[in-house]
């Protein structure tokens, strides 16, 4: 469905997309996971025709992006990261305007607009103005505006940024429904939980490069030799992370509130030394758990950096 070959994009002396090659099959929810500034939005902007690539080749459907961008635009829907809606037009008029740009008209247009407003849970607010909406409702309207023309491929660029958990769940469920209806979804996020829960395939992107690609399980298998202990302290005592890091087998230590996250080499049995550190420093421990590998750990292992600030 989408074939990307050695794609690159440079802005002056910054390489935002660096030699990216991907193949996205029809009917998948493809996740692009990476921290802010990794190059996800630039990649999406190239794929939807907003930016010309510096090098490489992209084919969407059977169309070459350099030669047939008009045809490509007719089959894609874009939900941008920034809220791109008109506050002075009603929700209905917003969706109607954007759908009309794709040639949808007459009764079909009216039905499509109402269907998509119902799909995003905004049917009752159709005649209301977005300035009266909550952040979550605006996000859903932002999504509705990219769906009313029934696109085959949907690009969603961080659609859940800055919204409440309820709206986030609604959006994630909507993405799954769209996929069930046959849409191919390219979903960028820096929330690993989202990528884990909805994406059938994930590419981890950092500094414009794809550093790993596969299904959720395939990616986690990259760190099957690693484990994570989560130590819960009674209160947030000061922890000497450097001292903990010097314990054999400890790869990374991080503290958050009263919790200490310790990534380990699974092949080394160092639990006794770790517990000894807390006892030796008279730090009362409430709980100790062994965490299963997740995409956050995958990213940390591959890049040495966190995916996002907690």
């Amino acid at each position: 469905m989408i074939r990307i070959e050695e794609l690159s994009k440079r802005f002056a002396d910054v390489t935002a997309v660096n030699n990216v090659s991907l193949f996205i099959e029809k009917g998948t929810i493809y996740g692009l996971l990476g921290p802010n500034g990794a190059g996800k939005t630039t990649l999406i902007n190239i794929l939807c025709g907003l930016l010309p690539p510096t090098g490489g080749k992209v084919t969407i459907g059977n169309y070459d992006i350099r030669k047939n961008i008009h045809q490509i635009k007719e089959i894609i829907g874009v939900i941008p990261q920034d809220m791109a809606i008109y506050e002075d037009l009603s929700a209905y008029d917003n969706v109607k305007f954007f759908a009309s740009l794709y040639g949808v008209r007459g009764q079909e247009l009216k039905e499509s607009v109402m269907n998509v407003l119902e799909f995003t849970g905004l049917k009752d607010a159709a005649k209301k103005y977005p300035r009266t909406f909550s952040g979550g409702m605006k996000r859903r309207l932002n999504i509705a505006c990219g769906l009313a023309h029934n696109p085959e491929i949907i690009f969603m660029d961080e659609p859940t940024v800055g919204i409440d958990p309820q709206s986030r769940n609604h959006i994630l469920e909507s993405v799954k429904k769209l996929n069930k209806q046959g849409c191919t979804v390219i979903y960028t996020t820096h929330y690993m939980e989202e990528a884990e829960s909805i994406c059938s395939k994930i590419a981890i992107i950092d500094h414009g490069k794809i550093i790993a690609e596969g299904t959720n399980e395939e990616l986690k298998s990259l760190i099957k030799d690693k484990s994570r202990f989560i130590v819960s302290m009674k209160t947030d005592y000061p922890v000497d992370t450097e001292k903990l890091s010097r314990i054999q087998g400890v790869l990374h230590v991080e503290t958050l509130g009263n919790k200490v996250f310790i990534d380990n080499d699974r092949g080394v049995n160092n639990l006794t030394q770790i517990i000894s550190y807390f006892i030796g420093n008279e730090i009362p421990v409430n709980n100790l758990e062994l965490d299963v590998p997740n995409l956050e750990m995958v990213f940390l292992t591959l890049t040495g950096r966190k995916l996002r600030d907690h």
Partner: protein
Amino acid sequence: MNSLRIAWKYIKQNLKRPIALSLLIVSPVFLILILGLALSGVFSQGQVTIDMKIGYYCEEKGNLYAGFKMFLQQLDDFKVTSEETESIHAGEEKTRQREYQAFIIIDEKQKSLELVLNNNSGVQAGIIEGILNGFLARFDFYNLVFRYKPEALESVITSKEADFITHSSLNASRQPRAIDYFGITILTMAILYGSFIGSFGVIKEKSLKTLNRIYTAPVTRVQFLLGICLGTIIILMLQLLILLLTEKYLLNIYFGENVPVVIALLFCESIFALSLGVGIAHLLDNINAVTGILNGFIPCLIFLGGGYMKLPDTGLFKILSWFSPLSWVNKALYEIIYSTSHHYFFPALLFCLVPGIVLLGISTIKAVRRKTI
């Protein structure tokens, strides 16, 4: 089609902003009233006044006498007072004693007027002679009407315009009052401020990030540009129409006999305004720079066009005003409205359309070259 959809959306957005719309229409009218009334004294100084007293006598009173009496009423505007004497002798005596600057003997039989002047009449003698010639010419015209279409005579005589024979130097109704002057200059100023409507069309789409969303649809940059231009010109035309009707019928501002030409000229100024706003907003990516340039540039053009005050016709201001399309439009409008000459019409068209076409042309070239892919 997409251009039309963008235009229609933009019109709808603007019509939904009653405050902005009222600012576009109500404030110019308000400004015209304030300036027109406040500065009426300044303009009345420029009005032709003769300030003289004349006497007249008629032996057998007929049509000529009746017409002359009506004509004298019109001379009130020029501060010409008149008095009917009991005899020719009495009139001649008062003229000799300089009570009258002129004495007129009406001869119904000969259908002629005899003018008696004193030694001190001077320039006023020439003026009164011109007035009488004007009257006789008009009287001849009335006679012709009476001969060939008597039923139309009353409407011809009582017509407010009474413009069948033009004596532009003496006809007070053709001298612009303060409200006429500001009616025109503020109308052209309001149209120029319409540049902001055009620029907001582009700026708002950029700042709201909806422009990128539009470009991800099968819409080219040229189609978008065309849509905003169409929407803006329709809004400006609507504004022009409302202002024109309000000024003409509510404020009684005089727009001359050639209103279609006036509208054509204002339309050309609208093209200039829209191209200025849309062009600058499209060419510059920085929103603050766009508003900054327009906020600085438009008042300069208005000032040089005499929009804030009448500028002197000599010196530096004259040279600078040459560069303001508004100055040409205003000159052309006054010329079309207050005389039959069209001397400034084509220069005004050129000064509006050439920069407009250049700005839109550059924007279009940029839009064509700056392909998304």
